[in-house]
């Protein structure tokens, strides 16, 4: 802050002014970015293009124009090709078997579970023949639908709906019939997420009003229990397999990272101080393992860890290089999802919505496969179908029997529904219900 202003700030506003100043001073520009931009500016400066004319410079200029012309032709060619709808990333690699996969899915032979999609503060369910997404609550009578969670048995879908800052949990069946409110009154404030307990008898939710408080609600809407934590949640908690503790990304005055909180005595245990991403952790189906992505800013490495929860044994499944230093712009890992048999973990990793990719890591630490470029929000079904979003569409990929590093077949299931809301892509979510018998 500049001194002329500092002297005129009232004493009671001084702490806030200091807080603003220290926050600003903590915003460090990346040296690489700064250096690269300076180079670009120097090259673009008009004085750099005013050279004395000589035979050499004329020849150089001519060559330059020729190269520029060639580059222009290449650019035009690329632009024209980009206007024509192209094949999907996986189709580029394996173009032939998609038709049979698509036919199998549409006719209900594989990927039989209902697929729920949260996008743009609306929630959708796939149609029976998987040709479109059908919006739940099209009249928007229950406000913004911002979260979804299938029950452990996959038979019920719980949603969070918020109207004018008051939220409730709503439940519907696998086919998306009428949404039933869980709470008789919406008095908990704007609700963020909903999580089922492993036995399907309780919901966990939390509200904007206070991100140190969680609410445990019986699935029939009775018995709301308010639990105040001694930390601040940056992610929605997940129950441990025995239901006595929760796991979340959060912070208090002494620690931050992936934390475990005992619901009985509020004791906090640090699982990893290096987990930063709100959806960068997930339980295996049997609850025996926890996968999470660590961001080691000192080493400049992101590490996908699989931890056996009872013993604490850890395996590093894969690593990615990341910029070093606390001020750097880091990619994020999100939507970790385990295969039902626990043999694989899928997740997306990248910086923005369009430069993410979906990866599959084998949980025995034997390797990793990049499944799709320009793709995000992966979700694995119990019968081995991977759903994900890419280029404005929801795709399905067949991961059954994946044994080699080649990319399995995929196809575009349906267009992502148009959305007028400018919602963050990180709120998009895909989740499978139970597989039909």
């Amino acid at each position, binding site marked *: *802050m500049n001194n002329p*202003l500092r002297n005129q700030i009232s004493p009671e506003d001084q702490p806030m002014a200091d807080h603003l100043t220290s926050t600003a001073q903590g915003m460090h520009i990346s040296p690489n970015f700064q250096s690269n931009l300076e180079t670009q500016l120097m090259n673009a400066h008009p004085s750099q293009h005013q050279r004395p004319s000589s035979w050499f410079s004329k020849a150089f200029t001519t060559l330059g124009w020729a190269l520029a012309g060639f580059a222009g032709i290449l650019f035009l060619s690329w632009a024209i090709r980009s206007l024509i709808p192209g094949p999907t990333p996986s189709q580029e690699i394996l173009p032939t078997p998609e038709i049979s996969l698509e036919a199998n899915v549409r006719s209900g032979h594989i990927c039989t579970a209902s697929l729920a999609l949260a996008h743009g503060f609306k929630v959708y369910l796939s149609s029976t023949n998987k040709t479109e997404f059908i919006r739940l609550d099209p009249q928007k009578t229950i406000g913004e639908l911002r979260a979804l969670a299938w029950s452990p048995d996959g038979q019920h879908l719980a949603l969070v709906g918020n109207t004018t800052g008051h939220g409730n949990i709503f439940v519907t069946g696998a086919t998306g019939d009428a949404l039933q409110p869980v709470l008789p009154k919406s008095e908990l404030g704007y609700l963020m997420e909903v999580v089922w307990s492993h036995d399907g008898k309780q919901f966990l939710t939390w509200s904007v009003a206070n991100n140190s408080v969680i609410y445990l609600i019986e699935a029939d809407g009775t018995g709301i229990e308010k639990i105040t934590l001694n930390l601040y949640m940056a992610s929605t908690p997940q129950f441990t397999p025995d239901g006595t503790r929760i796991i979340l990304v959060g912070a208090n005055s002494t620690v931050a990272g992936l934390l475990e909180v005992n619901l009985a005595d509020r004791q906090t245990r640090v699982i990893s101080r290096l987990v930063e991403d709100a959806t960068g952790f997930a339980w295996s189906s049997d609850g025996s393992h926890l996968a999470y992505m660590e961001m080691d800013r000192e080493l400049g490495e992101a590490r996908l860890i699989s931890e056996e929860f009872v013993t604490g044994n850890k395996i590093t499944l894969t690593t990615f290089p990341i910029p070093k230093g606390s001020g750097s712009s880091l990619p994020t890992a999100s939507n970790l999802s385990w295969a039902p048999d626990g043999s694989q973990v899928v997740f997306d990793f990248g910086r923005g919505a369009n430069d993410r990719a979906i990866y599959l890591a084998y949980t025995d630490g034997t390797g990793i496969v990049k499944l799709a470029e320009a793709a995000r929000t992966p979700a694995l079904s119990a019968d081995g179908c991977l759903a994900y979003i890419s280029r404005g569409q929801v795709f399905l990929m067949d991961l059954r029997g994946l044994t080699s590093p080649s990319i399995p077949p995929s196809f575009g299931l349906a267009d992502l529904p148009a959305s007028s809301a400018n919602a963050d892509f990180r709120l998009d979510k895909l989740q499978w219900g139970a597989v039909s018998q």
Partner: protein
Amino acid sequence: MTTLMKFYSPHASIDDAQLAQHAKSDADAFAELYRRHVTSVYRYHLAHTGNIKDAEDLTSQTFMAALESIRTYRGTGSYVAWLMGIAARKRAMFFRQNKPETSIDEAINLPLQNLSFENPVSRRLQREQLLRALRKLSPDRAEALILCFFSELTPVEAGRVLGKSEAAIKMLVSRGLQDLRTRSSLAMDVEYE
């Protein structure tokens, strides 16, 4: 400012206005101006977007636009105010194309004071919370706070960017700080209810 950039510069002792005149024909002079103000521009954009990638893109756009129009800078006012005017226009264009995520802004309400600065997660949470709180202020107050605290402009310079008097900027800053303080207090009240 990175140490890599701290090499000897013949322009280091010249003030901004003179340097800007040299910068019309001298790439090194423009580079010196860039080094002096890149942090202010970057922090301005990061405070508005809350996103490092977008802040870097907007910083690039701002300096590229400044380079294109440096010949039109007449030297009658502060160079940094002229530069931040370009930054403000780039920011406005960005938000016309990418409307802010209003619902997410309402999402997380972290008390500002209680997180440790020691951990990168805490630092990031603190910064995100403060930026969210700034976005809830009236646009004039938020802009005045960002220009004065993040870009470190004087009230006179901020006034040039916003087309307001020095007194008006001081008033906006004062009321903006009060607003932030009130919102922070409310969060603390809820926390300890």
